[in-house]
């Protein structure tokens, strides 16, 4: 087990002990929520793992790096950021996918842009956001998020 995995498990254990000390009933309820979300997210996790396996076996790294690698340029970055904004994948699933893309030749900037727009911008949830908060705020937030995602990605590409 990697240090990171150990750290995450210890952190969860710590939270669990604290919660148990504070309120047994609520802790039980929390674990119920955890089991339910685990069951719900599991098939999606499995699907993405199968896709990663196929991706690594069939798509040669030079193809990946041609489209979203360093040499893909700004157009490639915009395209992958747009894809992230439109897609609706749970963020937790997007990280292994991002790792596999990085491993097979994708650029840091592209991967950062993809994850950032994926989480920050919700085209699927946009109608709801407009309904609750109004057009002005919803469009401003989502539009500006796209721009800052690109900026964050470019900085990441430079510093990493």
């Amino acid at each position, binding site marked *: 087990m990697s240090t990171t995995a150990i750290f995450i498990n210890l952190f969860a254990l710590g939270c669990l002990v604290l919660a148990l000390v504070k309120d047994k009933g609520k802790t039980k309820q929390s674990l119920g929520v955890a089991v339910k979300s685990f069951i719900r997210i599991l098939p999606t996790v499995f699907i993405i793992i199968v896709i990663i396996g196929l991706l690594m076996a069939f798509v040669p790294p030079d193809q990946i790096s041609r489209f979203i690698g360093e040499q893909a340029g700004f157009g490639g970055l915009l395209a992958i950021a747009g894809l992230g904004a439109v897609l609706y994948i749970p963020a937790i699933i997007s990280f292994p996918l991002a790792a596999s893309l990085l491993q097979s030749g994708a650029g840091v900037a592209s991967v950062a842009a993809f994850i950032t727009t994926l989480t920050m911008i919700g085209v699927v949830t946009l109608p709801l956001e407009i309904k609750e908060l109004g057009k002005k*705020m919803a469009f401003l937030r989502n539009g500006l998020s796209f721009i800052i995602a690109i900026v964050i990605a470019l900085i990441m590409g430079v510093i*990493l």
Partner: protein
Amino acid sequence: MPDKNKPRQEVIRGYVLFAVTLIAAAIILWIFPTKITVATTTAWNYFLEMVMILPAVMVIMGLFSVFVSKELVVKYLGKTSGIKGILLAVFFGALPTGPLYIAFPLAVALRSKGASVSNIVIFLSAWACIKLPQELVELQFLGIKFMAARLALTILFVAIMGIFIEKLIEWTDKKRIGVSQELGK
């Protein structure tokens, strides 16, 4: 009870979709047997990495969603402003308390409690992209440097965006008030 059946159907659909993906993958690999080793070892490695952290991540999410009540968030965020407000908005947004669509009504409640526009935008954006369990999974798969750099940059730019949107909305509202006052004369 329709409320209980709908999520169950979604879960079943998820597993059916997984079965279809698995069968499709098996057929593809059966056609290209030379790719089997790479595909299965890669998938297995990612599976192991995921299995080691997923239960823990789910426990953390479950605990926070039950223990941090919506009332608590509204109570604290409604009245704090300035740097403290920004930090608090990021903090509450980052707590793993549910999907984004839960945050919209919460943002409306915040607004009626007098929270500033910048805090609401920062809170929403943090809720969307700086979730604690997400950061942990990012740490596991992409490493500390990637995760920390993206986290720091995201907090910084989300804060700037929040303040910018607030100023912009204030400015357009003022212009509109100015116009209506002139019309009233």
